[in-house]
């Protein structure tokens, strides 16, 4: 089960597998327990704050209307400006840098630069304290970008450290790497679906994290697992029903839905359930890591209430 025993929880995984869903569900769960929680979004655009009916938080820590829960969008350019301001201190010095188009281009172009700046903001949030000196947030949830780009993100401190060798940016990169790799403060969970490609990519990611990026790994969260429709002991009566549906003219007192079509729908779900089980077994056999499974939630349309249902299986 996922515990909130590290200040920084990173949620990572392939595109569309349910990272934001897990982050939101965890955020709601933690906040309910009175844990002061901040959700950090990255990537192309903000999706979580709008789900709570809030305007995009765009680089401001925004309360989500649930006690103890806020979110922020880590904008790389804004993070960079922050960084420049704090390094150069005086406005006459930092303003020309922040406003320079050369520097803007550099941020876009510099390998690992944008990523590093975003992580720098994360470090600051992790260290933020209240006036009385206690940590501002008990829990920071990072909704990391999809796997490929995600690894670029987490490799950026190393990349920059190798390039910079010394100087202020090197120092920052080192602080970031220290946080990311700290057993006491950080955990990464990887979300996946129980399907061929997502599982293969998850296995690749696990070894990259273990042997290259060195972020302490938490669980693999297998999301949207289709439950079995029928219990094994129902096999016999099910076979009987199938035979009946094929051969006997049944007086269907329940409208124009054919028994055969109902069986076909159930078979579809059974097929997926079986496939999910196979891939979970493959994952467990190869990853050597704890797995948490979350059921497929049959909600149409998908809403915040559906996310809460997912959370119900985490508690």
């Amino acid at each position, binding site marked *: 089960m996922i515990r909130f025993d590290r200040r920084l929880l990173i949620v990572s995984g*392939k595109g*569309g597998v349910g990272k934001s869903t897990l982050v939101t569900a965890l955020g709601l769960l933690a906040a309910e327990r009175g844990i002061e929680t901040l959700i950090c979004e990255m990537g*192309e655009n903000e999706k979580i704050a709008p789900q709570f009916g809030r305007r995009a938080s765009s680089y401001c820590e925004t309360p989500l209307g649930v006690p103890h829960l806020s979110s922020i969008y880590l904008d790389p350019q804004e993070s960079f400006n922050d960084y420049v301001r704090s*390094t*150069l201190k005086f406005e006459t*010095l*930092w303003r*020309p*840098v922040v406003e320079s*188009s*050369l*520097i803007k*281009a550099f941020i876009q*172009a510099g*390998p690992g630069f944008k990523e590093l700046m975003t992580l720098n903001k994360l470090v600051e949030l992790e260290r933020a304290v209240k006036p009385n000196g206690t940590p501002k947030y008990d829990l920071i949830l990072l909704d990391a970008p*999809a796997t*490929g780009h995600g690894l*670029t993100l987490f490799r950026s401190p190393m*990349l920059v450290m*190798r*390039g910079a*060798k*010394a*100087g*202020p*940016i*090197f120092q920052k990169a080192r602080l970031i790497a220290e946080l990311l790799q700290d057993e006491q403060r950080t955990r990464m969970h990887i979300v996946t679906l129980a399907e*061929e*490609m997502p599982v*293969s990519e998850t296995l690749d990611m696990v070894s990259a994290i273990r042997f290259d990026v060195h972020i302490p790994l938490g669980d693999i969260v297998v999301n949207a697992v289709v439950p079995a*429709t*029928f*219990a094994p002991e*129902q096999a*016999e*009566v099910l076979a*009987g*029903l199938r035979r*009946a549906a094929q051969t*006997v003219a*049944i007086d*269907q*007192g*329940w*409208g*124009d*839905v054919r028994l055969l*079509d109902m*069986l*076909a*729908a*159930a*078979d*579809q*779900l059974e*097929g*997926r359930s079986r496939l999910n089980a196979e891939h979970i077994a493959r994952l467990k056999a190869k990853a050597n890591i704890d797995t948490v499974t979350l059921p497929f939630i*049959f909600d*149409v*349309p998908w809403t915040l209430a559906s996310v809460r249902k997912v959370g119900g299986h985490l508690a």
Partner: protein
Amino acid sequence: MNTLSKLGIKSPVGLTGRTGRGSKATDLATLLATKRLIVVCGSGGVGKTTTSAAMAIAAAQAGRKVLVLTIDPARRLAASLGLSELDNDPRRVDPALFQARDLPMKGELWAMMLDTKRSFDDAVRRHAPRPEVAQRVLDNTIYQQISDALSGTQEYMAMEQLSELTRDNTYDLLVVDTPPTQHALDFLDSPDRMIGVLDSGVLKKVFGGAAKAGKSYFGWLRRSTKVVASLFERVTGGEFFTDMVEFFSAFDELYEAMRNSSKRVKALLKGKDAAFILVTSPQPSHMQEANYFLSRIDSYGVSLGGFIVNRVHSLADGTIPAGDAAPVPDRMVRSLRASVPALQANQQLEPLMQSLYSAWQRYAAMAQQDATQIAQLEARTRVWVKQVPYFEADIHDLSGLDKLNGYLFSDSRSAATERAGS
């Protein structure tokens, strides 16, 4: 948008007349028989790689010499195409594989997997005016670290490969799979973005000049943007800054060739021999992306072939009326017991019908949502929209791909069978 106009592509605002091109709605079989380039794009995980392979097979079966350029195919799919290693070279798919399954194969099927890093190195060698220039880039430590890590590199390299593969007429048709991107159209922007990163106006001015100034470029740089650069140096650390300068100036002599190559590909993509096919799932988030694609594609000046909605939950029509007060499963049990003697006394029937009914309800809700989403897409576009059902298993072999083709070409195949039958 900005990048496009920067590169001299006319602003497309208000060019609704362009839709005319897509509106002829050439069916998929005809596209595959007549086009020379099919680009398959869509959100992550929707089935681009699978459908690319399937379409390439269909075109080859019909007699063309087809190359499918795949990107990160699932291992089992790659293996079933005979692609065991990522070698960046086209490989002929053994026709015996088709014979063994009684599948016709009149043409030739070739397949290759994109190796981003190798493609980048090859492109550097190709575009460099002299071998020393290429070597300087290849030796640059920053280049070595980014050439397969920088986001967008994969898309850009797919485009570069496209440029190379279309230099001669080795293949009748190229089917191009694309990497997962946030927006399907990111693929088209990638060369601009990539070259833009390496060759942004300001950087070029500064480092281009720096490169010409030779060894003294750092001194030159100080003079040119003295204040900002020295402050920036203070922010980042001197050595890092110097390395970056070296990186950008190493690329200096490559920009022009890179830009030309990208221009060529873009002209090709906009030409009458090319068509784009968007793959999507019926999931609302993917459909939103499909609608965005539809609203933007005209402005790119490329022609939209059609949509493939993959992984559709489909269900025969039917409703269960509220009827009498008894819950549906109870009614079903009653009626089954009445008409099927074998089930009359079976105690297991009740829980079974409970499970069956709730499974059907869940599935029906998804099928309903899918149908609504697809109808909305169809209402918005004049091109064809094909549906492929959600199969019970992954598609990883030729038989699976053939099954998928049964849905992509349902109309033409049944026409063919009719002809054969008459």
